[in-house]
């Protein structure tokens, strides 16, 4: 990964690249007008990375978009967004500028990197064409020249074989490469400021680490300033120079990164920092639980095995004669009653597939999987249905796991009604109320519809539904990944409380090592459908054996700038050794 350096002709800048002054933005919505940004002031100095963090919906994206004048028609803005020109002296107020001028600014003075690389690329044009579009919009470059520039910029962001890849369509790139392409598009006109809105949220930690490196190079080698929006404090610690914390449309705190992490001033910031899980957090608790289990085992109550996978293989049939795709390949593990097994791995490694197969939602195609004594390979739904009483399932996305037309109470009552514990939802209401209270939701919320609850509340209701029948086994598929850190912390806490109280065994699926560490007794690491490592949190996270686990662990940014700098070095070392031993992972 070498850079073909190009001489930087950008004049020395003195003033801020962008200077936002008392920005107010409101939206017209179905429910009247909504204020998204309420008097925000921010500045980004040349060559600086400013991170903006905050809750979901706190106005980060809206603020960022206003810098490019990309607000939708339903938005109205007031205040000033002064954007420095490329030449360094003239600054334009984006809020007041006419459309034509706005078009000139975009791409040259400020560029944007979007969160989801697969949606930010037009699927029907080659990436070369799309990069050239930016050039064509601003210069009268010939087709060939534009192409050369595209190849050049692709090379600079680390796309291998850019001469060929320039004619590829977006779907021919991997997720990380797509994000590189998106960054290349932002870089091609050498903008003074790059606005990156959650540029790594859609990516795996390992890929995220690479993209963060790239962004760092954007600043270091290209001299661009970066406005980085994220909710991941690890990313903040890794990349940013300064941090602004937003809450409810306002900036509540602004400080240098080191300062903020070391001495958060605002209560909100403190809570936010405290809510971030980190590896090692759960060690104590896991140890305590292990001891308890050992004791009970000595007392003669050997825990029953609830789930036992032996050489489990799951293939998805290929469409129209394409070969079947094997998502899970020869996985063996065991889950005893009362135990929490964490399953981690990057996207697509087969975590969900395993969870679903245990719940009887996906067919087992090879090996053996016994769930509550029932062999799942070739099992009929009719045979398995009675055992469902003992299985609970918590889905990743709390919003979509509730039937939008039923009230929360009706949803929670569903298992009770189905298994004959109550005649109808009304009859089950008493038990539902108890359940809601158990997950710390007021009874009255039972009468609400799912979309009238917040994400965290919904996930709690989802939990209530899963434990309604007091199952022996709970499968939780990334139950918090759709939630904010603070809400996530709350749900996780509740989760472990309930687990302690009800003693169900749990398969906890997550891509976040820190989260798994917090909850699990044992951790299993999945890599491309294979189980590469399994052990207690201490074993797996403390002294990872497998190279993949090591890299996974090293890629995870920690919310501490100092520690993170060290980890980064470690990661580079790891990567270098891996590169020399094998070819690139993808």
């Amino acid at each position, binding site marked *: 990964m070498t850079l073909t350096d190009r001489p930087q002709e950008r004049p020395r800048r003195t003033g801020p690249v962008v200077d936002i002054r008392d920005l107010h933005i409101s939206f017209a919505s*179905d429910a009247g007008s*909504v204020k998204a940004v309420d008097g925000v002031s921010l500045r980004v100095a040349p060559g600086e990375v400013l991170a903006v963090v905050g809750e979901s919906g706190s106005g980060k994206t809206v603020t960022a978009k206003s810098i490019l004048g990309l607000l939708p028609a339903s938005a109205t803005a007031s205040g000033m967004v002064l954007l420095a020109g490329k030449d360094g002296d003239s600054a334009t107020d984006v809020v007041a500028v006419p459309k034509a001028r706005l078009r000139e600014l975009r791409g040259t003075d400020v560029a944007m990197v979007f969160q989801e690389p697969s949606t930010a690329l037009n699927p029907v044009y080659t990436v070369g064409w799309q990069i050239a579009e930016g050039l064509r919009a601003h210069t009268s470059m010939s087709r060939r020249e534009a192409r050369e520039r595209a190849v050049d910029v692709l090379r600079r962001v680390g796309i291998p074989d850019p001469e060929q890849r320039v004619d590829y369509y977006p779907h021919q790139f991997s997720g990380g490469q797509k994000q590189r392409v998106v960054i290349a598009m932002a870089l091609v006109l050498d903008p003074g400021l790059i606005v990156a809105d959650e540029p790594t949220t859609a990516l795996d930690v390992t890929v995220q680490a690479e993209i963060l490196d790239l962004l760092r190079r954007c600043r270091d080698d290209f001299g661009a300033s970066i406005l980085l929006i994220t909710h991941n404090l690890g990313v903040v610690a890794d990349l940013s120079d300064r941090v602004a914390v937003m809450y409810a449309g306002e900036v509540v705190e602004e400080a240098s990164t080191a300062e903020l992490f070391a001495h958060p001033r605002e209560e909100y910031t403190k809570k936010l920092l405290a809510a971030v899980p980190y590896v090692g957090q759960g060690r104590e608790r896991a140890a305590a639980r292990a001891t308890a289990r050992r004791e009970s085992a000595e007392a003669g109550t050997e825990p029953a095995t609830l789930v036992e996978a032996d050489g489990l293989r799951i293939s998805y049939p290929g469409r129209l004669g394409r070969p079947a795709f094997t998502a899970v390949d020869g996985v063996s593990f065991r889950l005893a009653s009362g135990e929490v097994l964490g399953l981690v791995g990057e996207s697509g490694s087969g975590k969900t597939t395993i969870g679903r197969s245990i719940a009887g939602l996906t067919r087992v195609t090879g090996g053996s999987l016994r769930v509550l004594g029932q062999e799942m390979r070739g099992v009929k739904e009719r045979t398995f249905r009675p055992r469902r009483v003992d299985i609970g399932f918590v889905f990743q996305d709390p919003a979509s796991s509730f039937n939008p037309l039923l009230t929360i109470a009706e949803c929670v009552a569903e298992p009770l009604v189905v298994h004959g514990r109550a005649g109808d939802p009304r009859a089950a209401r008493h038990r539902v109320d108890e359940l809601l209270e158990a997950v710390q939701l007021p009874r009255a919320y039972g009468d609400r519809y799912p979309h009238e609850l917040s994400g965290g509340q919904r996930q709690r209701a989802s939990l209530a539904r899963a434990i309604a029948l007091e199952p022996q086994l709970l499968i939780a598929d990334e139950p918090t990944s759709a939630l904010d850190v603070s809400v996530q912390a709350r749900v996780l806490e509740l989760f472990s409380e309930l687990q302690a109280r009800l003693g169900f065994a749990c398969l906890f699926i997550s891509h976040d090592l820190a989260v798994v560490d917090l909850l699990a007794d044992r951790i299993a690491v999945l890599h491309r459908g294979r189980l590469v490592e399994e052990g207690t949190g201490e074993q797996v996270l403390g002294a990872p054996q497998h190279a993949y686990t090591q890299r996974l662990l090293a890629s995870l940014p920690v919310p501490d700038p100092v520690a993170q700098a060290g980890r980064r070095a470690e990661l580079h070392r790891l990567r270098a050794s891996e590169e020399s031993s094998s070819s690139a992972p993808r």
Partner: protein
Amino acid sequence: MAATTSVPGGAASPVLHGRRRTWRDLPVVHQVRQSVGVQRVMLVLGLLLTGVFVLAALLAPLLAPYGFAQIEQDQVPFGTLQAPGGAHLLGTTQGGYDVLSRMLWGAQTALETIVVAVVLSLFVGVALGLVSGYLGGWLDRVLVVVADAVYAFPSLLLAIVVSIAISGGQSSKWGGVLAAAVAITVVFIPQYFRVIRAETVRIKSEAYVESAKVVGASTGRIMGRHVLRNATRTLPLIFTLNCSEALLTLAALGFLGFGIQPTSAAEWGYDLQRAISDVTAGVWWTGLFPGLAIVLAVLGVTLVGESLNDLADPRLRGRRAVSAASGTVAATSVVPGGTLDAAAGLETPEGQTDGGDRR
């Protein structure tokens, strides 16, 4: 965690936010209030035209000065091809019928046909689509191929063949209406089938259906309680759009002579067809009015359907402009300064921040 959230309430009728329902939340009223600017004008125009059409249909017996097959009053014939004016506001036809009366009665026939046709196809199509989509298997494959075949076939031709097949001996008004309606039904069933099936297949893999499955609910229960109601949310839109198509098909059948006879009921397509030779002879009123009636009725219904469609789709819905500093800051998911130890349940609903309006 990517943008895989397909919005469960996204393109749907307004599920109200748990607040007390008032007249403002009634289906159409809600949309009128929701719409702004051009969209509102179009919706209201559509509603007006549709309203006039429906009223004319319902009140035809009261509004129409004469019967649809009446050619004389008190032993005095109306006379054929009388110009508009006098006793016959819109003139009379070649057969000596009163044009205005036939227009009004024609609305009734049209409405009846639409209702019968759309209701019939709705039930059959929805049931088939649901079963086929949910159960899958060979039944699904067969039904899909059949539906696709029928769907791909020119609907008017199919309607003609079917109407011939079932019109045998049917000449009473209801016989005619039924024949036309069934013909239209055959054409529409595949449409409903496809829509419902597609929805069902989508919903089938939604987390809430899977969660019902995990809970152990029976197939029947899942289909009835979870899939059906969610799959049919888009139906009102299809319904309005199909209404206009039913109208046109009926008129076309009438025009081609496979429709309802004037002595059984008034039908615009038939009248228009009969009027063609009038028009070339300089008699404009016999053709213009039924033609306009068709156009306006279809225009009205389609406008309503399209507007509803736009309003239900957040991408297409227009919104009123607001001033920069107006509105309240939407509460986010946490209480300031109290993230972790906020009393349970005090969290404020966050609306759509994480369900997302986006697709």
